[in-house]
């Protein structure tokens, strides 16, 4: 359905050559289970199924990036936290790894080849790369050290620790980082590039000052480690991020994926000359709850806002898609990107926007 593979497209755009369209990644997550027709819980134990679902979803929609990632809690679990794994829903944190200050010293970095579900993910990476690694970028999703620290200690208690015992919180972040580094190393050895999700770093959750003191130093170590291995990660932070845009961009990452609550144009203006911007169609209100016409409208608006961002732009949802996102909405995003083509002609995009019938009032 596309003239180029995602890798050919990315290479051409990077070199300033002709390409068929902008890269587009609707960000299908555990919804890949709906494409393959398996239960989400299969991803917890069955590496082949985890990879096959990602492959099936990639083939079904033709988007520009696949990722091995099932939920936020796998790294904390590999360090002793308990997760609940529902039959056909995304896993959830059931109990943190430690519940006392004294126990923090007993935490050890996870061994990604042995602990929790991490070995399943690593095996899935082999299957993924073997099947489609030659045509599409394969990513290893990983939770950032700060966010993972919250799951090691329990979210509310971790907030208290951060304020009352900063030294102990730093200890948590340090051992959390060790796990991230080990996992990133294992994933890179298999030929994948880590992408980092850092939701707790959001300005919706903690202050920029707390982010800079407790998250950024460890995030920088992780990013530098990945870069030293010749790869460069994309970072995603949910919610409001404007006050920390420069902090993230100055890490020198391949890209920053932004939530739908930020102003995309402002973001491109602020840090688009430092890093690629990815985003940010509302995954809930539009992709899950909207119509294909809504998806088309928002996708075109995002393209208008961000297509000329100096370091490049990728059409994406503002976060991972809900599991039950209708396929026709994912198709609508891909179709819109294909119709716009490359290079983007803003007048053509405006004409496409104007041609969409108005939405029903109140929708």
């Amino acid at each position, binding site marked *: 359905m596309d003239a180029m593979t995602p890798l050919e497209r990315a290479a051409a755009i990077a070199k300033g050559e002709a390409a068929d369209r902008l890269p587009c990644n609707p960000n299908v997550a555990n919804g890949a289970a709906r494409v393959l027709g398996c239960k989400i819980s299969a991803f917890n134990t069955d590496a082949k199924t985890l990879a096959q679902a990602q492959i099936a979803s990639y083939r079904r929609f033709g988007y520009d990036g696949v990722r091995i990632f099932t939920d936020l809690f796998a790294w904390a679990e590999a360090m002793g936290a308990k997760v609940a794994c529902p039959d056909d829903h995304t896993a*959830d944190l059931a109990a943190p790894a430690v519940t006392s200050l004294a126990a923090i010293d007993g935490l050890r970095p996870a061994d990604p080849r042995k602990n929790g579900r991490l070995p399943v993910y690593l095996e899935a990476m082999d299957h993924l790369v073997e099947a489609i690694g030659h045509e599409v970028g394969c990513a290893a999703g990983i939770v950032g050290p700060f966010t993972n620290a919250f799951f090691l200690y329990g979210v509310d208690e971790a907030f208290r620790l*951060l*304020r009352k015992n900063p030294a102990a919180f730093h200890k948590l972040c340090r051992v959390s980082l060790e796990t991230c580094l080990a996992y990133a190393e294992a994933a890179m050895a298999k030929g994948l590039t880590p992408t980092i999700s850092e939701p707790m770093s959001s300005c919706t959750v903690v202050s920029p000052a707390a982010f800079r003191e407790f998250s950024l130093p460890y995030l920088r170590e992780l990013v530098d480690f990945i870069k030293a291995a010749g790869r460069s990660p994309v970072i995603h932070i949910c919610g409001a991020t404007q006050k920390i845009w420069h902090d993230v961009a100055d890490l020198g990452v391949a890209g920053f994926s932004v939530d739908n609550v930020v102003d995309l144009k402002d973001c491109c203006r602020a840090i688009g000359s430092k890093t690629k911007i990815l985003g940010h169609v509302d995954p809930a209100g539009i992709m899950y709850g909207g119509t294909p016409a809504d998806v088309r409208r928002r996708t075109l608006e995002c393209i208008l806002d961000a297509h000329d961002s100096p370091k490049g732009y990728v059409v994406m949802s503002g976060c991972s898609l809900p599991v039950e996102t209708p396929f026709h909405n994912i198709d609508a995003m891909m179709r819109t990107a294909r119709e716009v083509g490359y290079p983007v002609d803003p007048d053509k995009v405006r004409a496409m926007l104007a041609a969409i019938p108005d939405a029903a009032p109140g929708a």
Partner: protein
Amino acid sequence: MNEREARLRQLSDSVVNMDDEGIVELSRNYIQAGHPALDGILGGLVDGMSRAGALYEEEEYFVSDLLLCSDAMYAGLGELTPHLPEEAKNARKPRAVIGVVEGDTHDIGKNLVKIMLETAGFEMHDLGRDVPVADFVAKAKEVEASLVCLSTLMTTTMTNMGRIVALLEQENLRDTVKVIIGGAPVSAAFARKIGADGYAGNAVEAVGMAKRLLGLETPVLA
């Protein structure tokens, strides 16, 4: 500022400054100085929580700060509540049921709404997260709630909100129970669509909406 006002201000400041240790002694001293506990709660602790809420709306405070402010507020309440007059202790507060709908995994937002409504004088019944549809209705019946607060951060569970409203209707509870929804994926339009009474964008808004819907203009905490 007289001596009583100065003490109230200190209580309020301790909540704003998240000082859950200092506030214990301040609360004891306030009582020992002979001042009424109710004023201390309303003019001190609740005032501090309202200021923290305003700072949160101004994006000066963050989710994590509100949680810690509430730790201080609860520490103060622990000292002051036993000194309330009996009739105030037994006064019937409006009751609210709150929870994160079935299949959801996040509850920071829900906890904030619970804290802010508790501050505003509601008796909160927290069902936690991943709560089946029927449990909301059963609890609302059991405690004779006048308010049900539904939260979600995941789109997969949005549709369950509509099911809860429908079930309340089936049980003929819709006239006595108001429904407020919140969470990233939902909106005022969605609230109208499923027949909820309102959508709140954050915890502070939820309090204002709850009071408006129930016709409570002043703090009811006793």
